[in-house]
């Protein structure tokens, strides 16, 4: 595995200082939570992302973006995870951007993403557990376009999005990868009902009901019946990104935990002096390092278009979710009573891990992928 280049290290430093300063828990997550913001994030911060060029990380240079890859996105996402910064970065600048790249929808939506005015979302899930090939939502041809009927859930920032990348079925049946088509559906489309919901981590996701929603033929992203390819590409980018964000969540929580072990005294000693806690902390450190290596490896393989990319994307997501879960459990436990209070940040990490762990498939889903891709 290659080490980070000087340019990548510079990007990492830029993202780290920007997010620690502007994207901090106090300035962003706690603020938007306290006023029960309908978006769960700040548009001002999203425009600051844009000013730094970060919204265009995955957008080709020909469209005015930075034309970088999954590795650079991962570097930013680890910092987002560390600071629990709520933003449309993963859903819009990574997942949706990957879904529409190379299509005419890129011309329509990339300028707004680049300027930080536009938010995009992926409307995929139809049940409580990730099962992308089980898309059943109906898209029937009618005249020059299609009519969509069905329901979606866990549409992250769905109520804030200007456009929904919507997976529907134009042929075949649930469980088949052929016959899925992606549509670019404007959120104000007639017949689209949006229920904006707060999740456990104070982020927002929508349940959407499509009742005879009419779209033109040019709403199709890519090819009719050929949505699986762009969807897979978007999900790979999303999972590699979520893995990196989970590494940040794990590292952020653990930084708090280690600080607590160094300053909390009981029995006349710092609790970090107790070997029972030292060994658990050292194990956690080791696991986080491994998860970070897996996340960077997955990103590197996506960027080099390796055949191994799918395998490592699932390895990275499963490992990072597993490790971040350990980090937040240990975090709350080692903080003792204060870790149970809303006032302390460690619980916020626990909540974020739950959502990111589920997003685009939990660790059980991805272990299954690893088993299948390994031939058993």
């Amino acid at each position: 595995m290659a080490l980070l280049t000087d340019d990548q290290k510079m990007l990492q430093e830029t993202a780290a200082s920007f997010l620690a300063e502007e994207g901090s828990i106090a300035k962003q997550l706690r603020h938007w939570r306290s006023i029960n913001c309908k978006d769960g994030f700040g548009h001002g911060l999203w425009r600051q992302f844009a000013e730094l060029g970060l919204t265009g990380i995955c957008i080709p240079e020909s469209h005015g973006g930075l034309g970088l890859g999954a590795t650079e996105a991962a570097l930013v996402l680890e910092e987002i995870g560390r600071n629990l910064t709520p933003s449309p970065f993963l859903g819009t600048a990574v997942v949706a951007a990957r879904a529409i790249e190379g299509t005419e929808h890129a011309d329509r939506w990339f300028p707004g993403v680049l300027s930080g005015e536009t938010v995009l979302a992926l409307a995929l899930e139809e049940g409580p557990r990730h099962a992308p090939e089980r898309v059943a939502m109906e898209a029937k041809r009618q005249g020059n376009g299609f009519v969509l009927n069905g329901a979606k859930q866990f549409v992250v920032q769905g109520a804030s999005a200007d456009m929904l990348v919507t997976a529907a079925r134009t042929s075949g049946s649930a469980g088949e990868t052929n016959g899925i088509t992606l549509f670019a559906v404007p959120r104000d489309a007639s017949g689209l009902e949006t229920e904006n919901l707060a999740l456990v981590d104070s982020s927002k996701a929508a349940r959407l009901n499509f009742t005879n929603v009419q779209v033109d033929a040019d709403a199709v992203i890519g090819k009719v019946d050929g949505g699986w390819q762009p969807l897979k590409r978007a999900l790979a980018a999303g999972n590699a990104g979520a893995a990196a964000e989970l590494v940040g969540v794990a590292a952020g929580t653990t930084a708090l935990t280690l600080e607590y072990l160094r300053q909390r005294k009981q029995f006349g000693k710092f609790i970090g002096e107790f070997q029972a806690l030292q060994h658990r902390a050292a194990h956690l450190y080791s696991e986080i390092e491994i998860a970070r290596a897996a996340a960077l490896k997955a990103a590197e393989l996506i960027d080099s278009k390796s055949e191994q990319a799918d395998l490592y994307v699932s390895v990275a997501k499963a490992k990072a979710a597993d490790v971040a879960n350990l980090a937040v459990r240990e975090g709350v436990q080692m903080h003792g009573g204060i870790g149970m209070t809303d006032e302390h940040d460690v619980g916020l990490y626990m909540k974020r891990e739950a959502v990111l762990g589920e997003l685009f498939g939990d660790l059980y889903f991805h272990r299954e992928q690893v088993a299948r891709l390994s031939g058993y």
Partner: protein
Amino acid sequence: MTTDLDAFRAETRSWLEENCPTEMRQPIRSEADVCWGGRNWTFKSEAQRQWLEAMAGRGWTVPDWPAEYGGGGLSAPEALVLKEEMQRIGARAPLTSFGISMLGPALLKFGTEEQKRHYLPQIARGEIRWCQGYSEPGAGSDLAGLQTKAEDQGDHWLINGQKVWTSYADKADWIFCLVRTSTESKQGGISFLLFDMASPGVSTKPILLISGSSPFCETFFDDVKVPKEQIVGQVNKGWDVAKYLLGHEREMISGMGLGMGGSLGAATRPADPLLRAEIAAFDVDALAFAAMSERFAAMWKAGEAHPASPSMMKYAGTELNKRRNELAMAAGGSDALEWDSERSKGGTTPRSWLRSKGNSIEGGTSEIQLNIVAKHILRLPGA
């Protein structure tokens, strides 16, 4: 630079094509396929001999050591190219030895010019097989508590004491050995000596392990005379050499975490859904650790890794290998209980399982590694 490296790759590829015997491109199936070298080495085949001679001739048994000490003098990127090209054709390591993985790096850092010129080329050519005299019956995890005594007799050291867990002491030609030269300070009274295992007064006794093999020995020193110049580093400063060498040992052992490599699920095809799920969880961890190994190697070479990070790698790699063996036993069912049948290839699975238990003990236990991480990386109080 890139074009130079491309030319080096092309040249390396064709040289390997010409010089690596077909037999040496087969995967290593067992310990018997490994070439350790040494004064008493019997080559397992003509191909094994040819392969060692060809590689040693170019200094490629130790590609990144300086050429004047018998190494290949390759830059880090060139050494990586050689490694990749060897992997491409499945070439075996021509030589495996504690001289290469442990003593050599310590001599390069702490040895005198004369010592480097004398010992390193012998290691590179596989002429001397080394063993490591560290642990003692009373000094395991608390290694610095070692008692083997070296008395200054003017023109030589006089060694008395006992070592234990000396890997392959019965097969080794020379030993690098920690001895006590002062009782005034625990860590500051240790020196690092090199001597011939054929010296009068050295005896070894193999230890039969639960796995049925005897890779380790008890080693006894009874008035062994060692020439004064065979000390590495200064008198009473051997602990620095020992610690540096342990870093390399841990780096080497952590590599064993990959076991025989490949997906455990693909190798065992477990029908039981709960076992399959556990094996899939293991495979995720093994692949993630493989990514970590690659990243660690790159960072270590570039000087970007924390000096204590081999402890983390050793801990994670050995715990993983133990888990792999536990799951292989479960997947094997009663087949994996057969100890010496032909069907079981002489009980490969249970013997490997039992042997793996030592991984997290030798070279510093998992608990010691966690102590080191807690102290030197996490800087926890009182650690």
